[in-house]
């Protein structure tokens, strides 16, 4: 057996032996995932699963071991993902720290910052939120106004963020602040601070899905130390160079969000044929819906191939740096189309918003949630602008 196949066999055996049965049931929605943090709410099996995976470094399989990762190669990490998928093991930890801040620290952080912050993320001890958007600065993020004034050994932060996902539940924030009013992109600083600091308040915003996963976040004379001791700076990279970090992080965020395009398990058509009924030839008995479902099955399989190619070329350094924007565009638009069809196929049943039979309108709420996919982390239109400019090099884009 080749090394990788030995690794596959051992991994599968370990997962079988260690994954709690509850963690092999599908995740119902975002709140059903394990987010860790200082004030966690665990469902049965979640903490055990997170801890035992963290011990192996497999909450972040491809991070270096010294920062709490698994130190796996691209091929091994791919195998781990495949085996977890095959055995229906849940992801042990959902985290903005893993998806966004971690990669940015690995790229731009000092050794002290990496040693301090990364293991906390890997073990699910600190839950992070992302303070980017402001009421006046969405797509044009670099116009942000939240200020951080240098006061010697600390900054004083004032301003307002919006759409801060899970700000009310997060422990720390990675926040874009303005440290130079005379510059746009070159006046932004990437700052890390505790959400328990005096002067930070959050106010949940109710969404069309009925949930309130994100907040308005207010900063009122918040004192942010320049150092957390032992050379651990609160600024990532350098003052006024936060835009470089922000952009790099957005690349990871976009790749991550695009992953939704490939989610959703097996064939949608096969699933709905069983529910809706079949004709005497065994075909789904609504021919127009059948055609739409087959189209989506094709798009899903095609997108999965694209995601695999994207991952492989990315790791090999062969991928255009703007390619995550393309992936985000395609993946999120596909996820929206998929949910449109799930609603169509579900008919009147999935319209029930509160009944027990629909688990409190879960499908309808998920359908509404997908509409944010092409807004959060940069809108589809902004993705197309970036592709036009950076990949196609169209003039004036």
């Amino acid at each position, binding site marked *: 057996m080749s090394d990788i196949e030995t690794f596959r066999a051992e991994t599968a055996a370990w997962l079988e032996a260690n994954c709690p049965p509850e963690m092999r049931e599908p995740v119902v929605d975002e709140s059903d995932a394990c987010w860790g943090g200082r004030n966690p709410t665990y469902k049965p099996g979640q903490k055990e699963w997170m801890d035992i995976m963290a011990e192996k470094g497999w909450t972040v399989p491809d991070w270096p071991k010294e920062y709490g990762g698994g130190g796996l190669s691209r091929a091994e990490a791919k195998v781990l993902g495949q085996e977890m998928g095959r055995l229906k093991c849940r992801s042990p930890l959902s985290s903005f720290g893993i998806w966004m801040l971690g990669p940015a620290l690995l790229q731009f952080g000092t050794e002290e910052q990496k040693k301090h912050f990364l293991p906390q993320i890997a073990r699910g001890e600190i839950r992070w939120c992302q303070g980017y958007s402001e009421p006046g600065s969405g797509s044009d993020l670099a116009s942000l106004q939240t200020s951080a004034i240098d006061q010697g050994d600390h900054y004083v932060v004032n301003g307002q963020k919006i759409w801060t996902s899970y700000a009310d539940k997060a422990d720390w924030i990675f926040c874009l602040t303005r440290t130079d009013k005379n510059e746009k992109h070159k006046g932004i600083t990437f700052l890390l601070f505790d959400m328990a600091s005096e002067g930070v308040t959050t106010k949940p915003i109710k969404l069309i899905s009925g949930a309130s996963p994100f907040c308005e976040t207010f900063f009122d004379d918040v004192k942010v130390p320049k150092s957390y001791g032992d050379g651990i700076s609160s600024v990532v990279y350098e003052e006024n160079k936060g835009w470089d970090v922000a952009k790099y992080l957005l690349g990871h965020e976009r790749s991550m969000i695009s992953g939704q395009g490939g989610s959703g398990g097996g*064939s949608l*058509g*096969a699933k*709905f*044929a069983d529910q809706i009924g*079949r004709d005497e030839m*065994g*075909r*789904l008995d609504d021919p127009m819906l*059948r*055609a739409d*479902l*087959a*189209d989506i*099955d*094709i*798009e899903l*399989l*095609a*997108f999965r*191939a*694209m995601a*695999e*190619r*994207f991952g*492989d*070329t990315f790791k*090999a350094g*062969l991928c255009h740096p703007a390619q995550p924007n*393309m992936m985000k*565009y*395609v993946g999120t638009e596909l996820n929206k189309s998929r949910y449109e069809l799930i609603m169509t196929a579900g008919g009147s049943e999935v319209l029930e918003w509160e009944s027990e039979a629909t688990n409190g309108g879960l499908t309808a709420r998920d359908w509404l949630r997908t509409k944010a996919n092409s807004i959060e982390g940069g809108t589809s*239109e902004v*993705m*197309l*602008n970036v*592709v*036009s400019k950076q*990949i*196609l090099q*169209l*003039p*004036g*884009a």
Partner: protein
Amino acid sequence: MPLFLNEDQQMLQDSAADFMKGEGDVAHFREFRDKNCKDGFSHDLWKKFAEMGFTGILISEDEGGLGLGHVEAGVVLEQIGRNLTPSPFLTTAVAGVEALNAGGQAMREKYFPGILSGDSVLAVAIDEGAKHRPDQISMAATREGNGFKLDGKKQFVVQGGSADTLIVAARTSGSAGDDKGLTLFAVDTSSDGLSRNSVRLVDSAVAAHVEFDGVIVDADAVIGEVDEGDAVLKRMLNAGRAGSAAETVGVGAGSMDITIDYVKGRKQFDKIIGTFQALQHRLSHLYSEMEVARATVLKAQQMLDEGSDKAELMISVAKAKAGKAAALSVKEGVQMHGGVGMTDEYDIGLYMKRDRALAEFMGDANYHTNLVAEMHGY
């Protein structure tokens, strides 16, 4: 295996790109179209394909070929698509050879030397109606002495006019719609009772209507087993569909590139039209579709080379996805060229015509979408 070309495949891509651009570019295509040549391609160029080794890409090294796989065949086909290179490569070196690879040694020894030298041209005779319906084949092959007698008609036999040998699917038992009862034959086009009517297609390629009127073939013309031709046919179709999907990606990518170039040069309203966001977003959407199509086709070819039992599903996904992406590319291409997109002088319309013909070859996007539903059991 990572989902990108390895170093050897990259080198093959470079040499195929140089070759098609140097020897078989759009100017070459126009030359052969305009002189109204009867075969629609240059036999000299086909000889050069052989010198490059391309005609033996799917023939084993033991038998004198390159012994490569469907990924490599696709690499060559993408360049053919990009340059609109007229050649019988897809029907001969991909579909034809793959059918013969399912045949016995004697058969391979008979046909491979001519293919390797570039003297031989093969065509596949499957379709009997305007749409690709291989499960509905009704052409009859009845036992006669030591061999078979073929009676019936085939159409859309691409390169059928210039081919010396046809790979013919006919019924030796059962009736249209049955899985079993098909047999594949290698038939000499000079056989008595075989007549061909060549027709020029919208893309200037030449296809034939072929009539079989009591054509007698020996038992050794059978490829594989009698009545078990479905397996050989499947193998040939898999190769041909994956290959034509790769060529389709080439056509779509070529058309996209010339369109992007065009919008970077044309001025209206005192501005380069490529600065208008209405065009930028559509081009970026097109780019995304082409990228997804390319990944899908490569995945299907890798799976076919690995012998995966899901390869057939992925080939249908690839044929459908590549077909849609390339169709979008040529439509947007003509539109964004404005009035000149309608002229024969500009190349974009040639891509549109090539895409249309390629879409029909071995099943269009609708056909393969239906297959995907069937393979998923609905």
